[in-house]
């Protein structure tokens, strides 16, 4: 057993070595911790199957349990953004690279991340339809039985007009970048796709300290 774990350990270390070249915001030890945590998560997976990564359902439950996200559309979109090779599984590499931005990203990285999340068809533009899709249920009620959908449409129009600096009727990454830099609140304009400070702290504490104790 100990031999196995030693082997394992070596494997993890070499993997961490490799990953640390791609990931900016974690130290090597932290990466090791994250790999271990990933393995645990993988083992807990309801249908482990033959896959070598977290599947969508599992990923969503992590987002829900650890980062307090609840919007299905956004969670799927976050999954899509993590899943860079589009194989419907989050590999350890994708997981750690994703977390790097997710937990400790700079504003630049976050802007890019959020943009990818919101760009649901991956055509490098956030269109009016995409916005509307994401915001569909965001207006709960209006007085006098007005149609909330109209309100959402209205707000999508306003927001599009505001972000569309190059007047091409859709929001490019450059547009989005500019808009967010002007008003930081627009970073997560179409849905919370980054964890809040408290859950970041909780997650890091759990992964890094807990693992170090082992």
């Amino acid at each position, binding site marked *: 057993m100990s031999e196995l774990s030693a082997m394992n350990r070596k494997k993890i270390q070499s993997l961490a070595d490799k990953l640390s070249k791609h990931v900016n915001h974690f130290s090597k030890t932290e990466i090791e911790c994250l790999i271990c945590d990933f393995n645990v998560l993988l083992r807990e997976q309801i249908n482990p199957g033959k896959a070598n990564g977290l599947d969508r359902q599992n990923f969503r439950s992590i987002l829900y349990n650890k980062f307090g996200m609840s919007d299905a559309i956004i969670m799927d979109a976050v999954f899509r953004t993590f899943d860079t090779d589009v194989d419907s599984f989050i590999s350890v590499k994708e997981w750690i690279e994703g977390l790097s931005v997710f937990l400790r990203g700079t504003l630049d990285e976050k802007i890019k991340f959020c943009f990818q999340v919101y760009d649901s068809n991956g055509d490098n533009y956030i269109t009016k339809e995409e916005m509307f899709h994401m915001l569909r249920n965001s207006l*709960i*009620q209006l*007085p*006098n039985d007005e149609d909330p959908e109209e309100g*959402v449409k*209205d707000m999508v129009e306003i927001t599009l007009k505001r972000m569309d600096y190059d007047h091409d009727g859709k929001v490019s990454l450059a547009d989005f970048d500019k808009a967010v830099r002007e008003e930081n609140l627009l970073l997560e*304009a179409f849905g919370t796709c980054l964890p809040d400070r408290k859950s970041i702290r909780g997650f890091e504490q759990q992964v890094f300290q807990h693992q170090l104790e082992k």
Partner: protein
Amino acid sequence: MGITLSRAAQWTTASSNIGKLEFTPMNELLLKEILSFVEEFSSQHPQQAEHVFKEPLQWTTTLVASDFKTDYDISDSVVQSQEKDSEGHPLLLLSPPNVYVRSFSQLCKLVHLTNDKKLEEVRACLEDNRNPVVKVLGPSFAAELEGDNQDETRLFAKVKEEEEHKDTDDKVKLFLLLQNLDKQLLIKLLHEISQQVELNPAAVKNEVEMLKRSCGNGESRLLKSIQYTSDYEFSNGCRAPPWRQVHGEICYLVIEPCDSETLYITCSTAGVFLNRGIKQKGEENDYERTSDTYEDLVSLLKSKSPQFAKNINKQDCAVQELPSTQKIQHVESVDAEEQGQPQRSYEQQEKNVHEKARQQHTANKAGGKMKYEPCPRWKDLGLKCPPGRAEEKKPNKSSGEEKSGEMYKKKMATGAKSKMKADFSVSSLPGHLSPLKIKTSAGALPVEVFSESSTESEEEEEQPERRPESNTDLPSEYWHIQKLVKYIKGGDQRFTVLTLCTLMDFNLMQETCQLAIRDVGGLEVLINLLDTNEVKCKIGSLKILRKISSSVQIRRAIVEMGGLQSIVKIVDSEEEELMALAAETIAIVARFPKARRTVRQYGGIKKLVKLLDCVSNLANLSVRQEKDVEIARCGTLALWSCSKSTRNKDAIRKAGGIPLLGRLLKSPHESMLIPVVGTLQECASEESYRIAIQTEGMIKDLVKILGSDNDELQMHCASAIFKCAEDKQTRDLVREYKGLQLLVSLLSKADNKHLLAAATGAIWKCSISMENVAKFGEYNALEVLVNLLTDQPEEVLVNVVGAVGEFAQIPENKATIRRCGGIKPLVNLLTGTNQALLVNVTKAVGACATDMDNMVIIDQLDGVRLVWSLLKNPSADVQSSAAWALCPCINNAKDAGEMVRSLVGGLELIVNLLKSTNNEVLASICATIAKIAKDKENLAVLTDHGVVPLLAKLTNTTDDRLRRHLAEAIGHCCMWGSNKALFGEAGAVAPLVCYLKSKDSSVHQSTAMALYQLSKDPNNCITMHEKGVVKPLIHIMGSDEEMLQEAAAGCVRNIRLLALANRKVQLFY
């Protein structure tokens, strides 16, 4: 004509330029008037009729070539007049369907040709030429016509400079004719309007209320529902947006009758009509009228909904069955209810209202002048009156006023919107900058600054709301904001954040937007967001609150709604951005006492002070530390605002704020230093702070910062030193750290008056120490200061003069002042009214007057008379300061006695001031009397004015300063007639003897002198002896002062002599 056409004529589409004149009686009248004007023009004003228009009037005509007669050149369908203008254009040109006309004579002929279609032609002409005056006379004239300037000569000048035409005269006359026509038309139209019945908001409201009650279920219901499009009611009772109110529109209704489709209704002062469907968006074209105008809602509904008509008629019948006397009573009772007693049974009330409406109806038909009274508020706000109302009320108003009134309305209604906006943004600026202003003037406040909180007296005054003005021209932003606030209410976190971001894009510094947010209930929503757990919503809300708080009214509203508590709560949240924003918002909101109190009462001061505790080393910061420092900066900004209340100053000190401020004082960043130094200088009004500033070693930092090159920073620094330099040690420290030179160098920035005031203030206070005065001498400060004695604002002058007064304590400086020509400006300042300034000026003049050469100049400038007249100043400080200044003047004037006598009523004035209750005034007056009494003639006058009993009355005082000068005055006044005995009789002797027990040796001196004089009267000697004067006198004889020795001895001698004489009498007789 221009005004009438643009304002009074009823165009189908209010905003567009291609509108048609509606077929209304008003327009009919208008057209007829214009037509008759044109028809008669040629015959009445033949000369002006030939004047060629600037541009031809062009319109689509029904005339064809065959209508024209022989005096025209006709070829095919084109017709030209034979008359041509100077450039060869025919004065009339018809090329169907257009016609071009270039003069009134042609116009007149044309009208005569048209026979029965005259009105149509005029109508077409006016529709195609919305502004005929511009075409006839040119744009500059048209503007003149609309302006209220009717100065003929100016017009001539204008015409002349414009063109050297021979027909100048004609043009002006034409202009005047058109102007006259315009006036006539307006008067006619107004007359017409006043005949029409008008609705007002109250009446509409009543009617709607009445109809609302009759909605519901059941057979007899009148309507399914009736609703306003807007819940917001302006103060004048209207619900229409202000730019529609100028069209006389009151509100919009959406009514669902039982049997027909939904009706969109506009209620305006002119009546009730259907519109194109105004919902809550209020698109511009929706306002268009699509039906006839009805007198009231009931009659409109009657025509649109048969069931309504049926049901309401039923009710009418029921009412009609009642006997007629009762009917009248009912009507009255409705009136009573309108005044607010709605306890009647619903049914009856309803009937009554119907009845009333119906009655009114008939009255209208009968042509009566029954009219709803406009509600009083509406009346007050003259500009909210629908066009024509104001004039209607005052038909006799002069034409000039009328014009300007019209002009104003026009401005309000048309393109002025954008201009108004600009005005507002400018006007909001001062408000925004006010913290700076308040603070700086605080620093410049004179003497009393040190006794109490500097700005308590400069609190924000309750500003009158500028609603009326902004109300009339609320722009479309208002509706956008209303919509957005609705979205915030109904949306989730994402939607709310997006909406908040949109709201931020408005110009939130603009008053219109600020008030709009408040008026649509946005403040409550924003404040509610602060109590949620959504960080982003809180951030967004604070970002908006921070900006709109530039308005005084918003600040007050936030505090009234309890928003400040919520903001204070956020100060110690975990999110850095929130902390900083909350502190920043507090900095803006806490600009009036109640807000500052709220911050303190909810523990805000402590929390804010905690924000200051960031990094100990303020140089070389990491990114993370920079954030902390930023938070500290925001915290300081908030404390700065809060520190204007004395209690908050205490609270900051108790929370341990002073050392933290001291630490931040070492920051290298000006943005940080400004609020820190600002707070310190604000708090330096408290002695505890002054001591702390000195003991914590902040003077060194302050002096260092004084050397920065930021004016604002230097100003606060100088201000802090100004306040702290009350203390001698501080003054010495400033000198030690070489601050004096920096202060003097600040005097070169004479353009920045706030800075100059603070710098001169600091120099003044520092110059209280003579070592500093000597040091200032090295930098030639006095020369610079003397130059600042002219053309400066009072807050600077007070300090400059104060400093000059201190400098003049050193003899060589007195000469310097004279040499630099400082005496004259000083004397000139004696005529001012600022009391703080007068106190300092009299002091300075007094100090200068101790130099004989200066005194000559002062005398030449009539300075003594000016100082003397300041004794009449109501301020005790000025009185005493003036009196003190008189002493050296009288001492040093060449012919003092004569000079004093030349001041008519002067001596009486002095004697009367002995009735003052202020000891300082009394002391100074006594000192002056002592100087005056040296001249025997003047002493006689003083005596005549009753100086003796007044002085005697004062002798019971315990104030040593007063005692000293009082005794001196008594001593000198004894030198006339029977004054010695009179003092004795008035009981002045016994108290004087007591003065000898005083601890103040200067009291002893003057008392001994006085007693010596008094002892020349035997009765006084007896009194003195009885009071045991001898023993203390013998003691005083042992003094080092010769004068004192002599006086004491003289007094004892007199007593002794009397005793001897007595003995002799007893022995020999």
